[in-house]
């Protein structure tokens, strides 16, 4: 068992896990922050394209310098990322190719080039240990000499602590700070370019420049995060937190806040799940004995948690969630049923006819109307109360005004308008008209005083 897993996380002593967790948090926060603008501009897949296409950049930097100097690799990958962005734009504009296809063409060719170059490099005995660069092994950042408790961490001198921080964490921290500065500084420009590029240009803010700046940051963040967390996590974090927030909020600033929260939750839960769940399952004897591992790929697990957060938001969001919307639809349906019941009774009332027997009327609507004191049940039937009469008259007024509108203003034939008016009467809108009778000659009830 590695120290990573022997650690009881419940006792809140992060120890070795401190740095991997920190790296995950920084990477997810950076990507989550930038992702907000990608999702709004419908360019979410740029992260996907860039992270595939940086491969040749990494390999070429490696072949040329024959060293694994992270700065050079970073430079090579960043250049490849920007080249990808420019190429995609070129194929889109010059070749008039549809955006998705343009992206697919460019990144797959770049990726193929990378694959070929790796094979060539391998043959020239240049050993490319890019495995950890691209795979993103958070686990390798583990702090094996960590003090056993959190208290011990705090007792370290700053110098001792900083000396222990791995380079990848520094890279990510710098990247996170740069991305935050970029978004804060250009917030207004980014916002307007995301929602209305045309307006941005008209106001003297170059939407194209903002696009390239944003892409440069996405490319840099992608490359910076690679080494620590791997590219699936980067792609997921450029989309999932922003998508979660988009399903929960309607304004940009809250959206960004929620996305950062979602990113932090995904990173923490995902990392904890990866390092503890297999162990717990083994303890419970659920996992088959052939499986030995006590932890799984943390980047993958964070991605899955981020995906689950999106699914949860899609189902449970109070404003845009599937459940809330279906409840609202159901509520609307019930209101409409009660409305229809009241107008039906009013029509009998208008003609001085006896009300139909209660058995012919829909029961749930009857119950709701009774509860609201709009109708009074009588032994064999129901009658409208005074409140019910007022409400029904208002509804019928709306119905007949709509019929009048559809005939006089929209030019429909009188025998074609009832069904449409039957729908419109449930809206809040009421046409303004001084008509006193509807196209069928029936009186339009007066507006109640």
């Amino acid at each position, binding site marked *: 068992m590695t120290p990573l897993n022997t650690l009881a996380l419940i006792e809140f002593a992060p120890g070795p896990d401190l740095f991997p967790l920190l790296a995950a948090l920084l990477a997810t926060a950076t990507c989550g922050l930038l992702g907000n603008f990608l999702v709004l501009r419908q360019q979410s897949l740029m992260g996907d394209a860039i992270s595939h296409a940086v491969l040749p950049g990494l390999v070429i930097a490696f072949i040329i310098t024959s060293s694994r100097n992270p700065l050079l690799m970073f430079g090579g990958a960043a250049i490849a990322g920007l080249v990808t962005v420019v190429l995609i734009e070129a194929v889109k504009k010059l*070749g008039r190719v549809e955006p998705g*296809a343009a992206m697919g063409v460019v990144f*797959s060719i770049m990726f193929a080039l990378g694959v070929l170059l790796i094979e060539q490099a391998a043959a020239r005995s240049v050993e490319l240990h890019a*495995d950890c660069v*691209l795979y993103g092994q958070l686990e390798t950042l583990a702090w094996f000499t960590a003090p056993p408790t959190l208290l011990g961490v705090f007792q370290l001198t700053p110098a001792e602590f900083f000396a222990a921080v791995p380079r990848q964490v520094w890279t990510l921290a710098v990247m996170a700070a740069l991305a935050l500065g970029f978004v804060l500084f250009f917030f207004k420009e980014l916002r307007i370019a995301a929602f209305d590029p045309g307006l941005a240009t008209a106001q003297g803010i170059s939407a194209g420049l903002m696009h390239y700046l944003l892409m440069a940051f996405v490319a840099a963040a992608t490359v910076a995060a690679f080494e620590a967390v791997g590219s699936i996590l980067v792609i997921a974090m*450029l989309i999932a937190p922003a998508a979660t927030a*988009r399903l929960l909020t309607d304004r940009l600033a809250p959206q960004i806040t929620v996305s950062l929260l979602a990113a932090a939750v995904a990173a923490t839960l995902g990392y904890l799940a990866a390092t503890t769940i297999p162990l717990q399952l083994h303890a419970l004897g659920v996992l088959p004995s*052939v499986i030995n591992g006590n932890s799984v790929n943390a980047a993958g697990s964070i991605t899955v948690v981020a995906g689950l957060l999106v699914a949860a938001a899609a189902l449970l969001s109070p404003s845009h969630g599937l459940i809330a919307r279906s409840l609202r639809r159901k509520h609307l349906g019930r209101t409409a049923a009660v409305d229809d019941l009241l107008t039906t009774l009013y029509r009998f009332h208008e003609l001085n006819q006896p009300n139909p027997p209660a058995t012919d009327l829909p029961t749930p609507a009857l119950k709701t109307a009774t509860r609201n004191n709009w109708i009074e049940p009588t032994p064999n039937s129901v009658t409208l109360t005074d409140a019910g009469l007022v409400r029904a008259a208002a509804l019928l007024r709306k119905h007949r005004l709509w019929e009048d509108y559809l005939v006089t203003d929209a030019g429909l034939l009188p025998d074609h308008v009832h069904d449409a008016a039957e729908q419109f009467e449930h809206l809040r809108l009421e046409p303004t008209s001084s008509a006193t009778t509807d196209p069928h000659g029936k009186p339009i009830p007066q507006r109640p005083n």
Partner: protein
Amino acid sequence: MSFSLTTIPLTLAGPGHSHNHAPTSLTDTTDTWPTWSETLNVLTLQAGYNTTTVLISTTLLGVAAGIIGVFTLLRKRALMSDALAHATLPGIALAFLAATLLDFNGRSLPVLLAGATVTGVLGVLAVQWLLRHTRLREDAAIGLVLSVFFGAGAVLLSLIQTMQTGNAAGLSSFIYGKTATLSADDARLMAGIAVAAVIAAALLLKEFSLVCFNDAFAKVDGWPVSVIDLLMMSLVVFVTVAGLQAVGLILVIAMLIIPAVSARFWTQRVVLLVVLAAAIGGLCGYLGSAISALLPRQPAGAVIVLTSGVIFLFSMLVAPSRGILAASLRRLRLNLGIAADHLLELAYLTYRDRPGGPVHADAIDQLKRKRGWGPLVSLLVNLHIKQRGLGRSSDGYFVPTAAGLERGRQVCRNHRLWEQYLVSYADIAPSHLDWTVDQVEHVLSGEIVLELEAALETNGIDPHKPKAAGVSA
């Protein structure tokens, strides 16, 4: 991807590959070129049973991917295959886990491909669910599905890697084809899937085209659009799954997109597009695996994709109507024509005022300054005019021919007509005219000129003696 270095698609090495000299030591970098007879053997399918089978099946895969790719491109779903291909990973891992735990051979190809199909389809359905039920757009839905499914796959693979029985490295290299070889059996399976996809696409050509071009009309006309869409997506699934083994999970996307996009540069007709994309896809599959079989260290998937990349670049540059070169030539010719018109208009006005007298150098210089022509543009304009027999310049003078003068008169007349029209009908102040008029006078067709004349005539303006309205050219 995070698995990039393990996702190197398999080199189609088989018994037919053995003539290659693999580097004997790490410092051995000598590449041995294949002899002509070896090359010919491979290209003519005589290089041994395995190599030949592999060559045929990648060619068939290329044809199938080219055809299906056309429809996903036209339906604007090119990147759906991206989501789908990534979504196959958890299926492969789960199939392996399930088969191993049930004491089957976890590495049997049909089992793994079945698993890939299941999660691939789930991925497509997830994208459609997100699009239908949330406010997320297509790009976000596709990106979410591909990364989350792939992440789940990574989790499962890391679990498999710790298994006692399952050779984990074996599995990941089997999926990505690092060391495993494509056996003739596997190649035949792949070829079978590809042929089935081609036949299905041929049978459904009409339905697919209809849905691609106008799905609303198709729906109104009573076609089951969602069923047709589903069929189209399942063909994409089959091709992707078939391609997983040969070219790897990421590069199979390229086989679905690039041939179709390349073919799109050459034609506007769907049947031709399908045939062309099939040909390009097939050619890439054939050349890719042939090169891979002949040269050392050329992974087939990458070579196939790079071959199609070359064809794409070629198409984008030189295709006759949509290519970049053709478009730039058209634009250059148009601009030169417009520039020549300006010179001819000047000549017409000069000759009208002073019959027979040539256009003087200072007048031409003035025009050049006004239009901002450099020496190169001036040269090209003169060439343009000379070629068309509209005039010639000598010693700084410009002498138009009769045809040149007539063209100058037409341009001048169009200019005035359009000015009149704008003042009479479009309510543009005379002092604001010249700028817009300048743009349009060169492109007025004969029909429009007739219409303008008629419109002005009915309004009591004699277009045959147009007065110069405001600033004239």
